[in-house]
């Protein structure tokens, strides 16, 4: 599928798992699940089993994850399944990124059309 987001520069970047100070993941308290790879709008994102899609995208510095009905960029707000601003598409079906866990090879697409 063609991306509708040519103007969103951050989305175009390859996402690595930084082990540096800029990494947002808190280490120490828990041993995360197995590393997995999925794609968001064609970009490969690294994550760990157990993480939600919204968490993995946040860690990869992808904050714009949806286009609103009028085509404005939006991203997750409530991280609890209430606001619906984290909607993405998996296999064509609308899913909440904050309520769906990542899995190996998952193909996640952006929701909404640019006007």
């Amino acid at each position, binding site marked *: 599928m063609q991306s509708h987001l040519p103007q969103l520069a951050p989305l175009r970047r390859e996402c690595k798992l930084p082990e540096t100070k800029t990494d947002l993941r808190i280490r120490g308290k*828990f041993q995360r699940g197995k590393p997995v790879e999925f794609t968001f709008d064609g970009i490969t994102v690294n994550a760990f089993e157990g993480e939600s899609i919204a968490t993995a995208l946040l860690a990869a510095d992808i*904050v*714009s994850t949806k286009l*609103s009905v009028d085509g*404005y960029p939006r991203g997750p707000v409530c*991280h*609890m*399944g209430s606001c619906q601003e984290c909607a993405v598409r998996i296999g064509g079906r*609308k899913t909440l990124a904050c309520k769906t866990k990542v899995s190996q090879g998952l193909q996640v697409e952006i929701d909404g059309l640019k006007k």
Partner: protein
Amino acid sequence: MTLEQDLIVIGAGPAGISAAITASQHGLKVTLIDEAPIAGGQIYRATPQEWTPNTNGSPDQDLDDGNSLRDSLSKSNITHLTNHVVWAVAPGFEVRAVSDSKEIKLTAKKLIVCSGVTERILPFPGWTTPGVIGLAASTNLLKSQQILPSREPVIAGSGPLLYAVANAIIEAGGKPVAIADVGSLFDWVVSLPKLFAAPALLIRGLIWRARIFKARITVLHRHHVARVYGDDKVESIELMPIDANGTPLPKKKNIKIKSTSLIVGHGLIPSLEITRLLKAKHVFRAERGGWIPELDAFQRTSVSGLYVAGDCGGISGAKTAALSGTIAGLQASFDSGMITEKIFQDLYAPTESKRNKAERFGKRMGKLMSIRSGLLEGLTPETIVCRCEDITYGQIMDAVNAGAADCNEVKAWTRGGMGPCQGRTCGETIAEIVTRQVGDRDKAGFFTARVPLRPCTIDALAPVCSYDDIWNSDVAKVATAILPAENTEYKNSKK
């Protein structure tokens, strides 16, 4: 599939778990439903099953408390349905939930609703920019996903979560750029006597403040977000001084701060979709979070057999939630004839006095988080109010000026509140805007609750595909039975 129970409890937070355990101890057949994969609710939201705790991890009070609740739950006879979203509830009581494209129907004579709260975020210009996230949302990220929402965010809004989040970020190695508190230092100081009701929590709060002070983080009291700059990502944030009501003070200087993240929240709102569907009586109490179901001292609503416990009955925090859950469980057991009045009284009295004490602290916190109407005065006509439908403040004002006299009229005229979030995000704002015109929140009313309470796929509900099949399915029958008058035309045309 239909499951028949004595009691259904919706929501497995501290309130729901305590209610279910108490009722089950007294012999009721109980099912506890929650959409989360693990019990605990918001404050005790667990980390994913796939993760293992490191033994040398730092101590975490909320995690320990949550684990002990989960432990008692696993030792009980309660049927705990995880990953089940309740999408409809009918009088009598019939509860419908979906999980992974399967639907389940439960029936019971008694229903305890412990559905908790959602966060109130009042709009400001630029609040829809990606990178603006909730304060409560951040606690969720920090606790259950073990991730910083940002290393250097600006944190704004009201209530204790401001400092809880700032503290957690510092602990995890980040450094908030600034904290903008809607409340004044005075608001906090006058709260102190009430806060002594829960010394452990008070001390925890003071430690947070000390750590924030030590990290030399700017705390701006009586400040609100004036505007967020950036198109597809937050670039900077402008903060403005406000008065006690939240109204901007244009004579004082605004402050512009560079940061790619804004964490913001203006308190918590009880989740009342279920009690509204069941037509329980509700009252407006700003200091308890806004609209709340009318409850007696035994957690009973105005509908027979329907009880409410926890924050969805009025903001008061986790401790009160658990105690009110226990009371609701006791009352449901008594009303079902499982315990004598003597046993009920013996168990009720000590729990009630503990609950009342915890409430003194909790209600004060609720008050610190209550809505300040002046906060909406910085809106511009272009500011989006309803995020789902992209409806602006200007469009809503046009409707109000043209005579829309309550929330539902604004919704019908503008589509504001009609999107997939069911008005959970914009409902408070639209109600406040209408209130300015009509005088009070009672007159402004609230969005009528609708099924499905949460978006769910049609194939989960009706695995049949022609319109007539869907119409004749159970789903449609429930939907039309619950839906208000406006749908009767369609109903009649089908007769």
